[in-house]
């Protein structure tokens, strides 16, 4: 896990070895310091503002991949049968939001890469479980082309494991990254799986100040 984080941070070149324990600089960032985001950044950032997907947590209305004004939107691609990575990521995000008391300013969306098993109800309940105090979105579509284009916009790959027709017990390999999207529809930072909730909290603190 630490290795993954270090790799990701190494790739962006902006981090400090990824231990995330910057307590001082992030919290006291007030005037003179330029706090650094520790997740992965790209120049230019991914632009995802044109992506829309139906939101099962909102009666199927389309959600556009842009944050509300002054807020941030976290987007993650996963599936609810995933017993390890996905709940761990959701839980880490929830912990990060609590650490900086930002539940009201950060919305979280999961796009299911397994729409066959993740029904509207299952997916909505899943997101409500992890984020009772935040705007949360359960993005689901059975339109393969639509899902494919959404994945492509984020650089997400997923693959349903081969299984006998009618069986229900398969895995879905998927890119495990959380994308932080701003009001303009830009992905301002990316957190590959393994990044700690401390790092998430730190990055969010910086970004929310900029967003406000």
């Amino acid at each position, binding site marked *: *896990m630490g290795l*993954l984080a270090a*790799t*990701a941070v*190494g*790739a*962006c070149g902006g981090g400090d070895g990824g231990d995330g324990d910057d307590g001082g600089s992030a919290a006291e960032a007030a005037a003179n310091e330029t706090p650094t985001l520790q997740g*992965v950044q*790209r120049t230019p950032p*991914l632009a995802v503002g044109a992506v829309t997907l139906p939101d099962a947590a909102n009666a199927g209305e389309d959600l556009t991949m842009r944050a509300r004004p002054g807020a941030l939107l976290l987007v993650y691609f996963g599936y*609810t*049968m*995933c*017993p*390890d*990575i996905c*709940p*761990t990521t959701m*839980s*880490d995000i*929830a*912990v990060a939001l609590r650490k900086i008391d930002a539940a009201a300013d950060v919305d979280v969306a999961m796009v299911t890469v397994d729409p066959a098993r993740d029904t509207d*109800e*299952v997916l909505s*309940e*899943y997101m*409500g*479980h*992890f984020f009772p105090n935040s705007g949360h979105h359960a993005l689901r579509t059975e339109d393969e082309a639509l899902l494919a284009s959404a*994945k*492509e*916009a*984020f*650089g*997400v*790959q*997923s*693959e349903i*494991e*081969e299984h006998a027709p009618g069986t229900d*017990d398969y*895995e*879905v*390999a*998927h*890119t*495990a*990254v959380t994308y932080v999207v701003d009001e303009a529809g830009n992905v301002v930072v*990316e957190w*590959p*799986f*393994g990044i700690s*909730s401390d790092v998430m909290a730190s990055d969010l603190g910086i970004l929310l100040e900029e967003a406000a």
Partner: protein
Amino acid sequence: MRKRWLALMTAAAMALAVGACGGDDDDGDANGAGDTTAPAAAETTTTVAGTLEVTEVWARNSPMNATRGAVYMQIANGTATGDALLEASVPAEVAATVEVHETVPATETTDTTMGMGSDTTAAMGTDTTMGMGGSDTTTPGAEMMTMREVDEIAIPAGETVALEPGGYHVMLIDLAGPLTVGDTIDVTLEFREAGTVVVEAEVRETEM
């Protein structure tokens, strides 16, 4: 007489299992028959074969509709002999099936897509496509993750192996109901050398 034997075995199993996971599970002792077992202090590390200690056993609480869960733990092999976790089980009222799994990059599984994936872990923004196309936008260093069942988890002599998020885990399949914070689950572990070890998993939101 048989009952007392059972109580002894249970207490012994419990005693050796209760590591640092906050467990003073005082339900293990039969009334007053208890002090023939190994030292029953919470930190005991004695087993029949040597010193195998299972600690920090926890499971994440789950959404209402979740059908799968994961149990994590630390396994410390203080003996001079390599051991291995072979299988695990839980009561049927918790889950129907239990398997031991490992979270891995998708390239490490046998049913990988085309592409021999020799460069998938390169750090510097290497093309990590699995042949799915559209990989230009993939986060540098990120790759598809999946899980696979493993036959055993080796616990080398003198080492501690962690079952933790993103790595090995005991997977609960077909949960009978959601796992709720505060619940405890009896997990029966089978080791090649140490034999059967029963541990108590705490249901928590997170490992911290």
